[in-house]
């Protein structure tokens, strides 16, 4: 099997997963939720295999490199990170309703990857030949995935946070808020690491650790937005819906950093 056919299957399965979680939440069906959860694990396994195979394929083509070097590959990795982050959360809290707002992100990332992106395995241009590439991409995307999970939880909070604990698919309001905040903290740490590794890499490649390139600038803005959220909650006692809204705004800046900058602003970051 080729990686691209496995990735098509992955996209399809994520659609099923997302739909399953949605149905489970709307009809309050723990059985459907459990099935969706199994499906999510299976899909992640398939996707992991696809990523590894793509990696191997790149060596057969003689251009061997980790599959994280263009928009297509980064979207796939993003989807993988989101689902993995969510499943870890599910293992910890055992409330499957959150999947309804998070799994769709993974599906959308895969769908966007498979329609409208160049799927070829390309050789690496000199600037991307660096070990820092892996460190930078992995930390950034794990961070983005944590923010996606926080945002999904925020959406759930805004929709269901009023009638606390009527839906047993969802954690209580307090725990939900806690989930949002804790995942934001994890994301913040990873984003910080992502920005730092990016700076070190930029210094080696261009001799400038920070050049106010639009992508760098937007990642800093994202960092500021989450720093505001952390301080607002810690020192100014922001709670509940405000925190949920902040997680949405924060993820909005993440998405702009990821996609908007490429589409609307020009800069050094060729793809992601």
């Amino acid at each position, binding site marked *: 099997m080729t990686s691209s056919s496995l990735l098509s299957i992955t996209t399809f399965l994520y659609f099923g997963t997302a739909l399953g979680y949605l149905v489970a939440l709307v009809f309050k069906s723990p059985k459907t939720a459990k099935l969706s959860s199994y499906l999510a694990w299976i899909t992640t396994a398939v996707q992991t295999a696809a990523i590894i195979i793509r990696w191997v394929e790149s060596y057969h083509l003689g251009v061997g490199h980790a599959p994280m070097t263009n928009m297509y590959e980064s979207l796939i990795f993003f989807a993988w990170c989101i689902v993995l982050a969510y499943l870890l959360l599910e293992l910890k809290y055992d409330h499957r309703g959150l999947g309804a707002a998070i799994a769709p992100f993974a599906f959308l990332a895969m769908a966007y990857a498979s329609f409208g992106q160049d799927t070829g395995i390309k050789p690496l241009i*000199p600037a991307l030949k660096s070990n820092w590439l892996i460190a930078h991409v992995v930390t950034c995307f794990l961070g983005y995935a944590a923010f996606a999970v926080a945002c999904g939880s925020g959406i759930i909070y805004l929709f269901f946070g009023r009638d606390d604990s009527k839906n047993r698919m969802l954690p209580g309001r307090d725990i939900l808020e806690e989930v949002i905040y804790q995942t934001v903290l994890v994301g913040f740490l990873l984003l910080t690491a992502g920005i730092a590794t990016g700076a070190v890499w930029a210094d080696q490649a*261009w001799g*400038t650790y920070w050049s106010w390139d639009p992508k760098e*600038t937007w990642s800093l803005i994202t960092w500021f937005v989450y720093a505001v959220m952390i301080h607002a909650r810690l020192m100014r006692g922001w709670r509940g819906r405000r925190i949920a809204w902040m997680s949405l705004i924060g993820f909005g800046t993440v998405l702009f950093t990821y996609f908007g900058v490429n589409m609307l602003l020009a800069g050094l970051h060729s793809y992601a």
Partner: protein
Amino acid sequence: MSAKSSQGASRIWESLASVKLAVTLLILLSLGAVLGTVVPQGQPQAFYHHWASEAWAKVILTAQLDRVYSSFWFLLLVAALAVNLIVCSLNRLPKTLKSMGSTPTPEGLHLPRVRLSQSVHGSASPEEVHALVREKFSSLQGIGGRVVESGRADAEGERLIFAQTGRFSRLGAYVVHLAILILMAGGLATALLGFKGNVWLHPGQVLDHIDLRSGQAMPLDFKVRLDKFIFEKYEDGSPKLWQSNLSFIRDGKVVETAQCKVNHPATFGKVTFYMSSYDQEKTLDYIGLEVMDKDGPPRKIRIKNKEAVSLEGLGRIEILDYDPNWRGGGFAAKIRLVREGAGAPLEFWVRPRPPFQMPPQGPEVPTFKLTDARAKAGEYLAGLQANYDPGIWFVWIGGIIMLLGLVVALFWSHRRFWAEIGPGQSGTRVVLAGSTQSNRPSFELKFKALVKDLEESLAGLETGKKK
């Protein structure tokens, strides 16, 4: 100082230390940074008059929106953030250290009035309950802490136990904030103590100075020679490798050689060389032009470089310049037209696509269309960036410290627990109390879990007895 003015001073100090100011500054900095990604940066003034209306161009240039990140107001905001961080830390550090360092003595132990407290009842004897709570508290206890107990029961027969965890985490936020200051200092060091320049080298060329971005030439205390420039492409034509083989020369002798590649800079003395770009010498052979007069068929002509062509009824044309990618819009040639008889010579660019002439010419001039051009490829030039940047050390250190501080601040918090054990209506009563310095909601969950755990264990003690 009068009482009033000292009051005013302390109010200023408090607001400089406030998190409200921090949040405001972060929001303003974000908005400023957004502006810098919307307005093109670092263009010549004339650009903005084209890019925006006259009024907006004026706004952009006065507010320095053409160079946001070095504008006075952006730097002022950064400086304010630094002051905010310093004052805030100075303000809070003594209190933090005090509450961090204090472990209550058995005599000084008392049940504080805190928001989180709950009573648990059990029928087991106070001694049994005491042992149980002690066991629970020992397992709560974090690194460097100590369970403290009041020695004997007081007049009401009550005894207290205290435990705490994660004391050191209080310093995490200070470490993070310190790291931010270090990074800012790094930026300052880069700007004030470092230099950056671009260097173009032909193979074999020796260089003894660097042209700085500021326009000055900076002499080097050594010489650098490009021995070879290697440019490899993949089969699909995309670049695979750019490499400059450099020799560093002192007193006429080569003291070091280096292979400078993208992502593998070469350092000699203070200066680091980065492989940043390349260029290829192109010598123009000829261009082809189509001259479209108002009437009559278009005339095709070919003009060789450095040779003029005379066109009947029009004048003499020669090539002034050629650019394979003029203003990013494809190839173009600059020509001079010396008209027969009247008028000063005209100089303008001609292009293969409309607008064919830049700047546009009047109706008395026929339209020139560039049809083709041939240039002979010459040798490659290596484009190197030459830097000295002491700021990078600050970035390394600041980055590492920040990550360490974040891990500590975000995933630990200083939590304190008290239990008061004494006789109750139906046996023994335990009052559990807890406080935390940060992340209250997750602490509340933890506290609830502790209460539940204790209730279950107490119930366990009873059923164990009944058997």
